[in-house]
């Protein structure tokens, strides 16, 4: 599976990159929203993991642009954010997220959820 991860925190990017690679996925990383969109257009990853508060274009914007890219391209979007209020999570799903994971997360939990999403996607 091809996964794009976008986060402006290098340390978080580092660990997510490692985790997804260990699961055998092909990983692309972006440090801000703009970079993320360029990579999405180029690589068309099946899963997109997004931080919300990012420079240039925020996670919501990236999510919407990705979903509106092509009719044939419907990626799964996962928000991973430190915004953890009930209302933030609701907003995330309203913006089109398939999954919303609050920070800080447990690696095992995160990997499990993303794999489930991947399975669902395949069917």
């Amino acid at each position: 599976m091809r996964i794009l991860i976008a986060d402006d925190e290098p340390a978080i990017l580092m660990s997510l990159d490692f985790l997804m690679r260990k699961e055998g996925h092909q990983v692309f990383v972006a440090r801000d929203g703009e970079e993320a969109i360029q990579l999405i257009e180029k690589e068309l990853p099946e899963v997109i993991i997004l931080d919300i508060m990012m420079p240039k274009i925020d996670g919501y914007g990236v999510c919407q642009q990705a979903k509106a890219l092509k009719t044939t391209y419907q990626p799964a979007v996962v928000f991973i954010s430190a915004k953890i209020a009930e209302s933030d999570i609701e907003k995330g799903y309203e913006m089109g997220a398939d999954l919303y994971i609050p920070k800080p997360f447990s690696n095992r939990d995160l990997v499990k959820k993303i794999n489930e999403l991947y399975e669902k996607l395949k069917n």
Partner: protein
Amino acid sequence: MGVWEIAFLSIAYLGILFLLAFWAEKKKAQNKSLINNPLIYALSLAIYCSAWTYYGSVGQITSNGLSFLSVYLGPTLVMILAWGFVRKMVRIAKIHNITNIADFISTRYGKDSRIGLGVTLISLFAGIPYIGLQLKAIAQSFDLITQSTPSATFYQDPSFLLFISLTLFILVLGPRRFDSSEKHEGMIFTIAMESIIKLVAFLAIGIYISYQIYQGWEGTLQLHTISLPSIETNGGYGNWFIQFILCGIAFLFLPRVFHVAVVEIGEEENLKQASWIFPLYMLLINIFVIPLGIAGYALLNSSGLNSDLYVLGLPIHFHSKLLAFIVYLGGFSAASGMVIMETMAISSMISNNLIMPLLLRQKGFFSDNQNQLGSINQNIRRIMIVVIMILGYVHYRETESLVNLVSVGMTSFVIVAQFAPATILGIYWKKASRQGALTGILTGFIISAALLFLPNLGISTDVFRIEGLNPVSNATYWSITFNVLALYAVSITSKQNGKDANQSYLFVDVFEYSKNIENSTIWRGKARLRDLRQALSGFIGKINTEQRLKQIAKANNLSLSETYADPILVTQTEKILAGFVGSTSARLIISAISKEEQIGMSEVILLLQKSRDLQASNAELVKIDAQKNEFLTTVTHEIRSPITSIRSLSEIMVEHEDISQEERKTFLETIIQESDRLSRLVNQVLDLEKLAAGKVNFDMHSVDLGAVIEKAMMNFTAIAQQNQVGIQVDVSQKRTQRQIHGDFEKLVQVIINLLSNAIKNVEPSKGIIQVRLYENATHICIDVEDNGIGIDPKYHDQIFEKFKQVDNPNRKIDSSGLGLSISKKIIEMHQGTIHLESSLGHGAKFILKLPIQKTA
């Protein structure tokens, strides 16, 4: 038309009005008020146009020319220009539950019963002839349309029947619920309907004469070359101007106008639109006065008809029965509307300020009649209405041919205008005192009455006659001048007592305090709850009493099970009672059931200010709370990021034993960096809180800013190299000549903060940061400039606020969002300033200015 025909139709008309009133009351009961809107409000204000305007203006044209315009322009301008003043009166009346002008003035002056009584008697004195005038207009128009002559004995006079019907009408619709909080819905609605009828009737005859009989407005004027007395020949502009001012100030103090304008207004907002609807009405009802006057004079003068009846004489002259009846009905509306409201208003004044206080001062009256006070009050009003009507009728019968419509009206105006100084100064000038008001009103009244009536008794007042002024203007001039002078002179020389001064604050600053006045209490004493209950239920019944008390108790968190009532309950009870019996009587009732302690003025003002300040500080607290919440949300968010990576990377190392040495090392280093970041953040939050609370000790010495920069650079070079950012330090005079007074370490911290900011804003490898040190006459300055992305000017103000990392473009300028706030606080502690020059794409320059230490 026949006598009985017209009599019957007139009474039927009253019957229809009664049904309309009944319907309006019913609508009100269903919560669909018909009168709480600007249109009905403005129409009810047109109660100002009595029979005098309706018949008298036209009658005046040929003798006084355009002087009728002053009657029309005065109130028009008041509504257009002074509606703020009316609004203030409305607000005051609402807060104090005031229902008439006598209560209004006496409440302002410490609820002084003498003032209330004085205003009441003067209003009665001015009102009786005025009511007589309306009855006269009804009778004369009745006689003219029926072509009958008035009977010598009044009970044989058919118009007497109308008088009886009108009295009954007022009694039935009138004193039922005289609490200002429950408006006279039906009565006001009929008044508004009557205003429509009189306007339509007047326009009908105006259009008929001007367009049906003659070819337009100008045609009428041309056909009869009558030269109208011009303003110059009729006393000149001085006269005209004084009359114009007189009508403007008397307008609101006419008891009937005060009642509809101030007491029966639904919402204050109605005033805004009424301020143009009412002038429009006044314009319409005056537009045909001139052609009607000229046509009437040309056609009817020779018949010897009283010029006051031209309006009705014209349709009769042209044998138009229907139009004649419509005109008659319009005149009947104008007269009856005035009589209805005026008797209501004056009867309430007499009851509140004369009879109830007299009764309540009788020993034992209160305790014997506690339970029936409400109905006693109602019956007093009913009796007074009958008495006033009889007095008006007698006045009309006895003085029938003495004076014309206008001069009686003007006389009344001069007398009620005496209330204006005490009212106007009372709500704008705190020093106006009760002695001053009383002296002013009495002086003005005596002077005006003397100048207006002594000549009728054959006593000359020519000594006081100003050259060129007619008697009305002359009386106005002298009486108002001395009224104001007396009010002013006595007010500044006499001392206000506590109550007087209290009320002056409540009136003058009504908009400032209105919320507090309603909620707070300015009474201290002891009253038993049982007595309050009893006093209230005498007026509003047991069930309503319980409801009202419960409402008040609930709104103020009070208990109703105590023996002694809370002062708030007492104050509110007094206010409710004031709506029924006026402030003087309400005061008497409350003092009959309570032991009061005097509160001084300063204490009252303190109480009011305290509750206002409490409100203000409450709002401040809410704001601070919101800021605190925002701060906490941001802090927790900022803390979550490093925790996330620390946790995730640690988990990786626990679970994946197979990672390479190199990766392990990177991960561990990152964990250490993120931990550092976390502790830095915590420290900064604490620093900021300490700075904000003023708990930080500044170690102040003479400081060389060159050394500060050097120290900061020492800490920073490594980081800059890591990020491939070049730092150029341009310290033209490596050491400045002069020094500043400051805390060395804190200033180093500021420079480091600015440098770290700059480093985050520039692109790696291309970034250049310049630091400059220079001095002018008073300050030593440091610039920290980068060539990074810059900051949009619209964010410059908020950049120094906590956590205001400029979110759009989504770039973190300040790593934790706290560095700049801390820097700013530190610089401010040095009496210096920090500001930013930058625009998007052109780098950012922070400029520090610190005052040079004065060398001793």
